[in-house]
């Protein structure tokens, strides 16, 4: 384990002292999965705790509420795996916003939970998926495990909370 960690933590063609991360061994892979799983699940858990402590930051405002209504309408009126539906609730014959509630995991909680809980669960799932994608991107560019994981955590968390706390971005709103 330590040997694998040593290889991975300093990987990327630093010098002869370490071998690049692109030669994973089984132990190294397990170590990576362990660290990344811990990092992402830790973020998700922390997000759920935070959502419980600070209310109403997910699917907030008029847009967020409209999005909830559209999601629930898609589940109620759309056929299974159909996302190209006529809008049954708005306007004169336009299409329902083409959000796919069947394949986007962030919308699944709305099929199960009450809307307040679903909004928080949805944000937690989105955070996890987003962090994972950031991590994979960084790793594909040969960034080592630890900085990749930290960058993924930071990117997802900054985006997640920047609107509420810093008035920066409305990404996860």
């Amino acid at each position, binding site marked *: 384990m330590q040997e694998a960690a040593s290889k991975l933590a300093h990987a*990327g063609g630093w010098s002869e002292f370490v071998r690049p991360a692109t030669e994973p061994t089984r132990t190294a892979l397990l170590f990576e999965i362990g660290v990344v799983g811990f990092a992402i699940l830790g973020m998700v858990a922390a997000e759920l705790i935070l959502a419980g*402590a600070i*209310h109403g930051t997910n699917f907030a405002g008029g847009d967020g509420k409209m*999005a909830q*209504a559209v999601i629930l309408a898609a589940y109620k009126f759309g056929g299974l795996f159909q996302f190209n539906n006529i809008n049954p609730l708005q306007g*004169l014959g336009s299409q329902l916003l083409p959000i796919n509630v069947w394949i986007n995991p962030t919308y699944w909680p709305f099929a199960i939970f009450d809307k307040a809980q679903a909004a928080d669960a949805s944000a937690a799932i989105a955070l996890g998926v987003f962090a994972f994608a950031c991590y994979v991107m960084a790793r594909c560019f040969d960034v080592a495990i630890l*900085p990749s994981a930290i960058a993924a955590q930071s990117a997802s968390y900054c985006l997640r909370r920047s609107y509420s706390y810093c008035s920066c971005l409305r*990404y996860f709103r």
Partner: protein
Amino acid sequence: MVGNAVVYAPYMIALGLLARLEPGSWRRFGLITAGIFALLFYSLCCDLLWSVVGAAAWAPPFAIVAFSPMRPMGVLIRWAALGCCLLLLGIIGAAEYIFTLVQYTMRVQFLAVVDRSRLPEFASALFFSPYMKYLYLVWALGWLLGLLTLRGRARVLVVAGMMTCGILLAEILLYLLLRDGSWLPPRPMYVEQSLFPLFLVSAATGYWGALRAAAATLRPSHLMGARSWYFWYKAKPAAAFIVVALVPAAVVYYAVSRPLYIADLYNEPWPKESEFEQFFVDEISQAVGQPFRGAVLFDFHDYPRQLTVDNLWLRSVPTISQYGQLVTPQSTYFNAAVLKNDIRLMGPNGFMPLVNPSPEVFSRVLPVRGTRYFVVGDHIDRFNLVSLAHQVGQSLANQSARPIMVLPQGLHHNVGPNSVWHVYELSAPNVGNYSPTEVLVAETGAQAAEMMIQPVSISPDKSCFQRRSTNRWCRRATSKCPGFGAVCMCPGRPTELLSSCCLSNSRIACAHGAKAFAWCVPI
């Protein structure tokens, strides 16, 4: 919207996969290309509109990575992979669907009219967030350090982040300077949001490079004894777990130690208008397998009303007004040409017929569009609409001889505890039971609109076509519903709209749940 995270995530992974594509085996090329295609396709399937925004935002980093490193064979292979993905999207029809869906929106067809003001806050968070400039500075430093200390793919990531940021800044500048022209691409603000993870991860990579270089400088064995090295060697796995626990721990600490007032600072509860909601749920709420019973139209659109409308949508109560990116060109044209509404009021994402400036036409076409209830509330009357709306509502209620419901308004409207909604019921709304009696042909949309504006008197018992358009797509046909002299659009996807509404069996389309009868304008 939260779901955007999953729409944008595939672009990040696809970019990473592209970076790993080098000349070598065809199997590897095929696998990576298939992976990139699957990711792009998944993103499109998740939410096509936001995926298009993501594609526009991530196009520059993809191009930069495709050119890096600048070895001819590698560049060719990476562009070939991207070309294959685009070709596949074309072959399976996804590209055509994207084009059709995007084109079939008022924000594209009437861009020159509904384009929003070029306010700086639509360009970048830099202009409204006091913190964003610090983020850019931190990123810039990270990129600089990365350029100095990194090699290989990690450096490509830093270059991609830095150059994409440069392109974004140029785009922001163009957006702000070209005030007179229309802006068809996604607003730079959305591009900035989409690229945020690229900027942050690439900057973090730069800092990592700098730290690594610093560690390499300080590493000589004379600075550290053998026992210390052994300690670090053993401690590394534990240290990795501790390091990745820092960010979650900080988040949890903040959650636990937050000031009390923060708990509900951002919490905007759903409106509480139980009597109002229940009334509409009982009267016109939609359900699968149930017939359409009419829709509700509010007198005006503002933020508190939008919350009320959201609340009704949540309960499956249909509204004539619409809020979303897919407002159709026809409904917008109808609003502008027939009702003479200023469509700029709702911007590119809304459809909202207002009683002003054509109250007579408004009240005549309202039932045709399926409106069963016209609702006027108490609110700050900035546009002098309330009294006129009440007059029209009263007139409509007199025609229907139905009582006017007075229901309490929610506190979120901020107009006092005694504010009320006046709910006027219309007579004979079109709930799919109108039949066409006559087809009139117009050469242009303006002529069709003029026909709809003029009152006509057609015998209500006249229930079949007198004249049919023989034009297969019926581009120049309009029709009129009995007694109202105005017609609207029929629900349908772009291709279906033309075929189902305009062919001679339009009556069937109406009978099957269309809110109003067909009206086609040149598309």
